[in-house]
């Protein structure tokens, strides 16, 4: 049965035409291929979504209880939770309980401990703010140079290439880099929110440069020509026509870089130090949510684990808010 009816000058009868248009003449083989491919695509989507869903459920079920307590946002991180746990366990063991006793209700000395995470929340916000203040202006200006001035000259090609390489550098290398050039030189005092900001800024910079450049490239050239034809210098054209037109895209790309930096652990662990009291300053040791997740899991023990899960939920929440903001901005102020 031929399915491809050539378009002929004589139109088929209405009945025949409606049969053809309904797709009834499509061969069985093609219909099976169609069904199979559609099914495989749905399956692939489900497989991709499962880890995400499981992760979400796990993080929120473990950590939500701690986060909903106001103390979590206002109180310092309890010191020596590991030792408190340990003491608790030893006590239980002394009393002749088995190892399963660790699952029992903690005794009074441990339940007095208030689970707070304010220092890490403040530390994360500080480092991300510091990193953004350094990387966003520099990154946008770099992208403006690449797309509006350098274009294809050697320096621009070199910078573009280096930015691409930097995007691929593992984040732990940025941490070691800032550790070796900043923290080592200043000793223990070198570890600070500022040092962590430096490491995160190194991480964000190439992402911002490349994403902003892509957005600037989307601005149609006829707008630049229209502006130039009125006797406008390139810098003025960039400020008054090109950047405003690309702003929604730049904002969302930048916020994604910020969100990525907020979640980074390795560069922060090397550079931020450790505190349990809130430190609102860029100087002096500090802590962050990602550093807390890492160190509390390493500490082990039920209280430390609770702290880690709580920090995880808080971090996911912050990143989620940033991502949603980026989406909202892109959708409502799209490039014209």
């Amino acid at each position: 049965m031929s399915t491809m009816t050539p378009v002929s000058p004589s139109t088929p009868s209405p009945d025949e035409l409606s049969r053809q248009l309904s797709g009834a003449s499509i061969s069985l083989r093609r219909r099976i291929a169609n069904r199979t491919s559609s099914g495989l695509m749905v399956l692939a989507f489900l497989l991709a979504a499962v880890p995400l869903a499981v992760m979400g459920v796990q993080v929120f079920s473990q950590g939500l209880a701690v986060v909903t307590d106001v103390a979590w946002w206002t109180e310092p991180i309890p010191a020596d939770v590991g030792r408190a746990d340990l003491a608790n366990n030893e006590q239980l063991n002394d009393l002749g309980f088995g190892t399963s006793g660790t699952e029992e209700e903690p005794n009074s000395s441990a339940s007095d401990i208030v689970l707070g995470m304010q220092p890490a929340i403040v530390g994360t916000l500080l480092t991300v703010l510091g990193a953004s203040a350094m990387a966003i202006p520099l990154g946008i200006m770099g992208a403006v140079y690449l797309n509006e001035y350098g274009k294809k000259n050697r320096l621009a090609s070199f910078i573009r290439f280096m930015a691409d390489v930097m995007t691929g550098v593992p984040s732990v290398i940025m941490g070691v880099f800032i550790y070796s050039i900043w923290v080592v030189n200043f000793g223990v005092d070198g570890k600070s929110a500022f040092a962590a900001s430096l490491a995160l800024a190194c991480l964000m910079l190439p992402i911002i440069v490349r994403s902003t450049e892509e957005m600037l490239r989307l601005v149609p050239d006829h707008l630049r020509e229209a502006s130039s034809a009125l006797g406008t210098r390139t810098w003025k054209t960039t400020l008054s026509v090109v950047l405003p037109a690309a702003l929604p895209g730049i904002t969302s790309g930048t916020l994604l870089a910020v969100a990525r930096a907020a979640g980074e652990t390795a560069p922060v662990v090397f550079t931020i130090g450790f505190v349990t009291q809130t430190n609102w300053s860029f100087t002096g040791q500090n802590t962050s949510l990602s550093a807390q997740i890492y160190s509390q899991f390493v500490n082990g023990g039920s209280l430390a684990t609770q702290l880690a899960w709580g920090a995880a939920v808080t971090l996911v929440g912050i990143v989620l808010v940033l991502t949603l903001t980026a989406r909202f901005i892109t959708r409502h102020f799209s490039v014209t």
Partner: protein
Amino acid sequence: MSSETLDQVVPPATTFEALAAEQAEAPQPVERQVVFEVDGLSVHYGDHKAVRDVAMSVHRHEITAFIGPSGCGKTTVLRCFNRMNDLIPIARVEGKLSYHGVDLYDRRVNPVEVRRRIGMVFQKPNPFPKSIYDNVAYGPRIGGIKKRSELDEIVERALTQAALWDEVKDRLKKSALGISGGQQQRLCIARAVAVDPEVILMDEPCSALDPIATAKIEDLMTEMKTKYTIVIVTHNMQQAARVSDVTAFFSTEVNPDGDLRTGLLIETDSTATMFSNPSDERTENYITGRFG
């Protein structure tokens, strides 16, 4: 420095008004004043010679039309007049193009200053994604005018000149992208007029418009030539015949050393002569539709 060079030869707008009044009083005939003098102009894009050996002159308060088949370099030549080709990195211009006697491609000439005096309207309407008001006020603001009342006045005058004021006066704050294509093109003309240029270059300004909008813009050009000098590129021969005083016919020749074609100027003459009794056979063939 470059601006000084230009200022010496170009009368500022105020004396221009006086000059116009003087000319109106003086008995005719008024001598045709040369604005652009082109001689031996060639443009290369990389290794490719796009147009060669253009020689012509453009006179004040006249509409000069460039006609010819696609790819003959009309737009390329037009873009030389306000140095827009500078924005194309691989473009290279050779030969002489003088504006009131000043070589536009002299090293001391600043293209930004050139473009303030020689405005341009593009083929596709290209308003900025801003309000109608901000589009027209863009040029004057770049020129340093900040006073609101002054800007209001300029915007109204420019929009009136572009025959758009009555249609948009109630929605000046609305986006320029929300008006029709014909209105957008007139807005672009208003935007060019707002900086009070001496010359307006138009690159197929009506090719994206319907016949009604086209007629409006043609009427507009005829009105505008009392104040400005206009050079227009058009694919529409009837349009050239209707609006222009002088017509330049461009054509192409096949390169002996490549597949790409090179454009060249066949002849320039008054529009009446060009369309009734052209001196070159190629012009006649094109105009009568026998062009290969």
